[in-house]
């Protein structure tokens, strides 16, 4: 069995969940392992109904009031109980702020391998090989978990295409009783709030238009906002833009900002320092607009225009608007 730990918030599946299901379905086919989605939460009927439409074999549900808010203590306790009984081959969660919060703890508690940040897998004989990025994505590392299953992995956002999730299954739903007495309450959520008003959700935006130093001054960023608005996308920025205080920090994409994997990414006036590339190189389609043909961004871009952005961007915005109009 391959277990997918379903990630959800505010009664909605997080985008990473479909990506995990795609990974699990493909790996499940290669290793002849059925796929089970595991849902922890409170009042999760609608989530389970949505998961039932996916082509998976089973859904294990732990529905309990004490699981209403995510906590690493309850997650580790409940999952440890389920894994001890089920003995799956592989357990996959997202390399998200939730997955990286409980999976290492679960791995340490079970004393089983955790391959964190997987981007690909392969079959080497009967052995599972998981590949992850190291040295800020300058290199890849192929790893083989040791010993007996279960093996644990967190899968990087954007590594598998969530929109290719297979539909039309008829999974069996299994409810498990959870006993949360004796779980140490080491940590509790006090509140959740928005970081800043009007901040775009860059991690789930399908289209991002990002601007860099090539825009020359703060006022020129209006070109980026206009193109993003025409495309129905979000705005991002490289680190120099944020350091120069043209835009607040929450717009920053890269190693010290957000990691994004949209289907379409425009890098405008961004040279492509490695710190920026690690935050966006998983985008499905990358368009670079830069007057310097030697800029490193062109090494990872799929399409490019080598010209003055102050001429190209307005022309692009106008064309997109005309097509929509």
């Amino acid at each position, binding site marked *: 069995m391959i277990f997918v730990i379903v990630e959800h918030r505010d009664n909605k599946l997080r985008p990473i969940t479909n990506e995990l299901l795609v990974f699990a379905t493909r790996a499940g086919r290669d290793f002849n392992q059925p796929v089970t989605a595991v849902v922890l939460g409170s009042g999760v009927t609608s989530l389970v109904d949505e998961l039932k439409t996916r082509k998976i074999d089973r859904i294990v549900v732990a529905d309990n009031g004490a699981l209403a808010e995510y906590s690493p203590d309850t997650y580790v306790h409940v999952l440890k109980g389920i894994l001890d009984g089920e003995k799956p081959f592989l357990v996959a969660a997202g390399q998200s*702020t939730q997955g990286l919060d409980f999976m290492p703890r679960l791995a*340490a508690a079970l004393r089983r391998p955790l391959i964190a*940040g997987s981007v690909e897998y392969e079959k080497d004989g009967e052995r599972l090989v998981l590949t992850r990025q190291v*040295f800020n994505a300058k290199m890849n590392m192929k790893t083989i978990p040791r010993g007996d299953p279960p093996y644990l992995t967190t899968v990087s956002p954007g590594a598998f295409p969530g929109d290719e999730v297979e539909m039309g299954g008829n999974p069996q739903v299994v409810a498990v009783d959870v006993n949360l007495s004796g779980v140490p309450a*080491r940590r509790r959520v006090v509140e*959740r709030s928005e970081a800043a008003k009007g901040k775009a959700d860059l991690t789930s935006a399908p289209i991002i238009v990002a601007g860099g130093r090539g825009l020359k001054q703060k006022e020129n960023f209006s070109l980026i906002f206009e193109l993003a608005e025409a495309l129905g996308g979000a705005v991002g920025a490289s680190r120099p833009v944020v350091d120069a205080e043209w835009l607040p920090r929450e717009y920053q994409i890269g190693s010290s900002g957000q990691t994004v994997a949209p289907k379409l990414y425009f890098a405008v006036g961004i040279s492509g320092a490695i710190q920026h590339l690690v935050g966006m190189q998983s985008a499905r389609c990358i368009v670079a607009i830069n007057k310097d043909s030697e800029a490193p961004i062109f090494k990872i871009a799929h*399409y490019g*225009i080598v010209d003055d952005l102050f001429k190209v961007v307005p022309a692009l915005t106008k*064309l997109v608007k005309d097509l929509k109009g």
Partner: protein
Amino acid sequence: MKIIACIKPVPDPSSRLIINDSKTWIKEQELTFVASEADNYALEEALRLKEKHGGEVVVISLGGDGAAKVLRSGLATGADRAIHLLDDKFHGGDESGTAEAIAAAIRKDGGADLALAGIQSDDLGTGSTGVMLAEFLGWAHVTVVIAVDAKPETQTLTAKRELEAGLIETVEAGLPAVLTIQYGINQPRYASLKGIMAAKKKPFAVWNAADLGLSDAQVGAAGATYDVKEIFVPEKKSRVEIFGGSPEEAVSKLVEKLRKEAKVL
């Protein structure tokens, strides 16, 4: 408060990395090692907590000469003591082995109120060692921390953690606790000349696996939970297609491709 700051030595980001002959890691011999960037924020936060609440900051690092170097630098920046986990047997260890060795060192040192580490390292970058450390110690933990308010009088802390989609989660946790610190939480200070001089007189412990009560099978490559099959430089995904002509011509060819070929518009 007694605060531990975990610092990982990593190759200087500007260095050229060369894969070793067995293709399992990089050649480390001629590299310059520095503290992993995120750990600088963790150390700075530890120093600020000490300035506010009193107590001491102890820096811990596992590794060879690179670890000794980042520890000396931590002392020069303001930490009070250093613990260097040094043993050839540690070589080839993974996140779990490192976490177990640090947990043993903290226990040997009499425990602590807080242990801070960077959110992820510049080499493996998995962000898991700090969380494993918390499990091995049986402590609370908070990841992706962007603000900390410690309350030693009630043995609790309040921390803000950064979630996806611009959400900030405020949590309360009991002490002792492990925190993994997000980039940019503070502005790390630099060592002063006075600090560099003072660092030479500060306590600097060196402990090996036996000192920590760890067997050969628990540490280094022998204790690792996975094998490294290969590391390699990934091939570039695609060759860029450049559209020329006037700006109007170029964008119209681009949009055509995005709609018909890439199917993303």
